[in-house]
């Protein structure tokens, strides 16, 4: 019983790491640029396909292809901000929502057209292996993904707090007008923020590839959890999103284990509702950091 419980927690934490990469990206864009990116899941999907094709065409390990997927998605992010998001920033919410929502549909259908609906898998030497700790097993591919996800989150934290660009980003997030008066080029800051956010989505895609099949709809599975985590962890709060993602992974896993295999999401949404009822601004409180 205890072993089953421990195993459920381990399973939840491991997948929570992936949720975290996606939700941190969403919360970063929201915190800095003040726009909800509904297409975040599709950028995860693009990251998956980049890793898939590098692995099948050139035999590059999906983990090494992080070095390709992250820069490529960073550049896509910069272009997205510069050519599309910038145009709708002064407008009301509706054009902003439609922009990223349309982008999501466009990318999904483009992927269907180019890559077909087939599920694509990559087989790595560590895809089907696991570490055994007494009665517990830890799948190697998921462990690597979790560790790298945490490392990337930590790197983002350092970037936001220790570099000039990071500080400028937080300043622009708090008061864009004042930041602009202080000589910060907000468009440049926004470009970097969207770029970093998409790079994280790309990283999630590459990290998923050794154990999760790529398909045009693959991003949708993760983006739903990411949005819940973003709200749960206070909109725009990076640390909050990280903690909330891990909590949700564990809640989902415990739900499946002890309530029913179709109840994982029920537990997650119950958690969200309770949080909204008692702490409407999310677990991290009012501050958007």
């Amino acid at each position, binding site marked *: 019983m205890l072993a089953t419980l421990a195993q459920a927690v381990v399973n939840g934490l491991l997948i929570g790491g*992936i949720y975290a990469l996606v939700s941190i990206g969403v919360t970063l864009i929201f915190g800095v640029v003040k726009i909800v990116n509904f297409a975040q899941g599709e950028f995860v999907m693009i990251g998956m396909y980049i890793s898939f094709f590098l692995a099948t065409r050139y035999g590059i390990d999906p983990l090494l292809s992080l070095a390709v997927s992250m820069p490529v998605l960073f550049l896509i992010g910069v272009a997205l901000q510069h050519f599309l998001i910038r145009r709708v920033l002064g407008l009301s919410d509706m054009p902003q929502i439609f922009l990223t929502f349309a982008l999501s549909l466009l990318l999904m259908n483009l992927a269907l057209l180019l890559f077909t609906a087939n599920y694509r*898998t990559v087989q790595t030497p560590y895809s089907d292996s696991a570490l055994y700790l007494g009665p517990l*097993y830890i799948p190697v591919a998921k462990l690597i993904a979790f560790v790298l996800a945490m490392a990337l989150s930590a790197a983002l934290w350092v970037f936001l707090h220790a570099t000039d660009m990071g500080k400028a980003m937080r300043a622009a997030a708090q008061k864009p007008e004042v930041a602009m008066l202080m000589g910060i080029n907000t468009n440049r800051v926004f470009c970097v923020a969207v770029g970093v956010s998409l790079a994280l989505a790309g990283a999630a895609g590459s990290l998923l590839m050794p154990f999760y099949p790529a398909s045009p709809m693959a991003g949708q*599975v993760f983006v739903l959890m990411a949005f819940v985590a973003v709200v749960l962890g206070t909109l725009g709060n990076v640390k909050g999103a990280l903690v909330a993602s891990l909590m949700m992974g564990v809640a989902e896993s415990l739900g499946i*284990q002890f309530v029913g295999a179709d109840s*994982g999401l029920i537990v997650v949404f119950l958690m969200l509702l309770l949080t909204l009822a008692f702490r409407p601004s999310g677990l991290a409180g009012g501050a958007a950091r």
Partner: protein
Amino acid sequence: MKNGRGRTSQQRQRRREFLIKTAGGALVTTALAAFPLRLRAAEPVNIGALYPVTGSMAQIGQGCVNAAKLAVQMVNDAGGIKSLGGAKLNLIVSDVQSDTTVTRTETDRLINGYKLAAIHGCFASALTLIASEVAERAKVPLITGSSSDQLNKDRHYTFTPFARASQFAQAQLQMSKLVSDKPKVAVIFENTAFGTSTSNGLREKAPAEGVEIVMFEPYSAGFADAGPLINKVKASGADALFSVSYLNDLILIVRTIKQVGLKIALNGGSGGFVIPDFYKSVGTLAEGLQGVAHWNHDCSAEAEKVNAVYKKQYGEFLFEYAGGLVAQTFMLADALERAASTDPEKVRDALAALDVSSGYAAMGPGGRVKFGPDGKNIYAHPVGVQWQNGDLASVFPKDDARAPLVKT
């Protein structure tokens, strides 16, 4: 004035026509008298083929069309329908686009636009049910490999030569006895109409087959991680696992079972599980997985022969539905031969009287085709299959087994 001129030209036209016809007719008659029968090109027999070659089921639909063309070519190369003067089969393919509305209009269009002797289609039961309704009303015989039991209800022109959906569950349960004498089975299924109805069928039939179901669990389709679910299966102590799932979830389930190091026989059922694409997606992970099918390419010497030709042409083995379709084409040829007519009503009667136990028409599990009053082949049953070395091998029941079950 205008009318008058029209009439004269019309009359002239008629006269010319008359002259041509009589002269031509005379020529033809003399020609025929000189070379009886041999040179008279028999009118081809139109067979309608309704398959989804675009849309979500396109890949399988295209495979069906390829197999249908191959089968027609085989019949024609062997001399066509002899009782109709060596008439060739002429396949009229229509794309039903994986869509029920299109299926209805296309079936209608084909029946009204061509003189069809018979129809076959549509792979997906949901589409076949529609096509069958239209065909019944138009009184044109339809032959299909679709497995829905509904196709055998109140129908007179619909023929189903292969195993029915209700038989699949039973075969799957019996297969679990290959793994253990007293099998403990875990059933996991996605909480959709498809998952629920299939798994309920399994649960209802389990006691009669002496199979104990130790876990019966719906899950939400499209999960991110199969870990918690497999954790549960492990705790249940099952030695066989029936997973009623679509490909995405199934891949995660198979992977997780390997990671956990769980010793369990996984049976994925039918449909998308027993086509070459499954192996392409899943790769070596598929090795040892079990399923059920209404047809498999190793079922007879004839089947192996067609499979070899198909494989050479299309690069992959002849899958369940496509292989059954080749047999269906030969059943139609047999019926046409005996009917000696392309009249759909007569073809229907000949199909109803069909009884073959050799040749291409009889290739399939059971090895014999004879339709009951409900259009069901009374000798049909499903075959249990297992992925072995990238190929699908028949392992169950004993009479159809071509390879022993590899225990995983």
